[in-house]
């Protein structure tokens, strides 16, 4: 277990072990449980306060949620750039330059949040 891929072998083993545990537990459950299925009418229907479901299960979402999702993506992308910056900025030779570079980057993106705040996108109406 050496080398580049060796370091991922542990992770691979862990994943494998979790799959085994998951499959094992559910199989054991299936084998051990008593099986006496009854199928009364309506057993497999959604049931809440006596209203039978009609139509599809598809609801249209409000477009405002899209903006939130979008802002989240924006900052996830920013995080991708922040991460390499975070591991190196205190190394010798990096320092102030990279801090300034990242400050500009983040400041420009912060404008987006400012804009959203001023347009009252962040307040729930």
């Amino acid at each position, binding site marked *: 277990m050496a080398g580049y891929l060796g370091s991922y072998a542990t992770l691979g083993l862990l994943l494998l072990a979790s799959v085994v545990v998951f499959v094992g537990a559910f199989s054991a459950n299936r084998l051990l449980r008593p099986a006496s299925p009854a199928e009364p009418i309506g057993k497999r229907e959604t049931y809440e306060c006596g209203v039978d479901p009609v139509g599809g299960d598809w609801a249209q979402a409000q477009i405002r949620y899209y903006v939130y999702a979008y802002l989240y993506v924006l900052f996830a992308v920013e995080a991708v750039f922040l991460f390499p910056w975070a591991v*190196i900025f205190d190394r010798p030779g990096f320092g102030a330059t990279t801090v300034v570079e990242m400050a500009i980057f983040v400041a420009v993106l912060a404008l987006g949040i400012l804009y959203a705040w001023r347009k009252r996108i962040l307040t729930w109406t």
Partner: protein
Amino acid sequence: MSTGEAVTFWILVWPALVGAIGMVLARNAIHSALWLVLTMLSIGVFYVLQSAPFIGMAQIIVYTGAIMMLFLFVLMLVGRDASDSLIETLRGQRVAAVLLGIGFAAMVGTGVYRAMDNVTPAGLEQANAQGNVEGIARLLFTKYVFAFEVTSALLITAAVGAMVLAHKERRKGEKRGQPETMRARFYPGNYPGPKPGPGVYATSDSVATPGRLPDGTLTDRSISKILPVRELTSSESAPKGTEK
């Protein structure tokens, strides 16, 4: 290719392919998106395999995390009644597109495969000499610093654009304040009290049953407006789970 690499590759190549094909063939857009997640996860692992752990993780976090979530949000915006138009405006367009697509993929695939036949990988050690992430950071913050800073312009354009296209600004006058709400509530002809609860009887435990007012009349006001107006069949309105 080391053994570990080969084994992982041949295990994951199937989910990647099945996911991609499933994405194209799935009838339901949500299923399509989920198939795509499978492909993207596999590709993320491929990146890691090829000594690019940073890109691999970014693929998993940003693509399968954030961007797929955005896809799902967009799909949720599609209304229930929306359906794909199956009319071809140009006859034979779909068949031609499929054939051209497959032909193009085959051409590029074989071309790249043949071009990669006798290639010895070079430069990987130098690139990852001080660590993969450090190497990327080194390039990003020196040589490509201009492109990096300009990316922020791209992101803010996208943010402003999303808000311009998707956000409705409310005027001050459009929001009803407390006095207006109260005035409307006690307006003559309006019933200011709370609505009666639903009627639940021995014959039906459905909230769609109208409630009975103290004077004995049934009232529609007890039924929520979001309940669809419909005739219940007797089996539907019957109490559940008591038949045998």
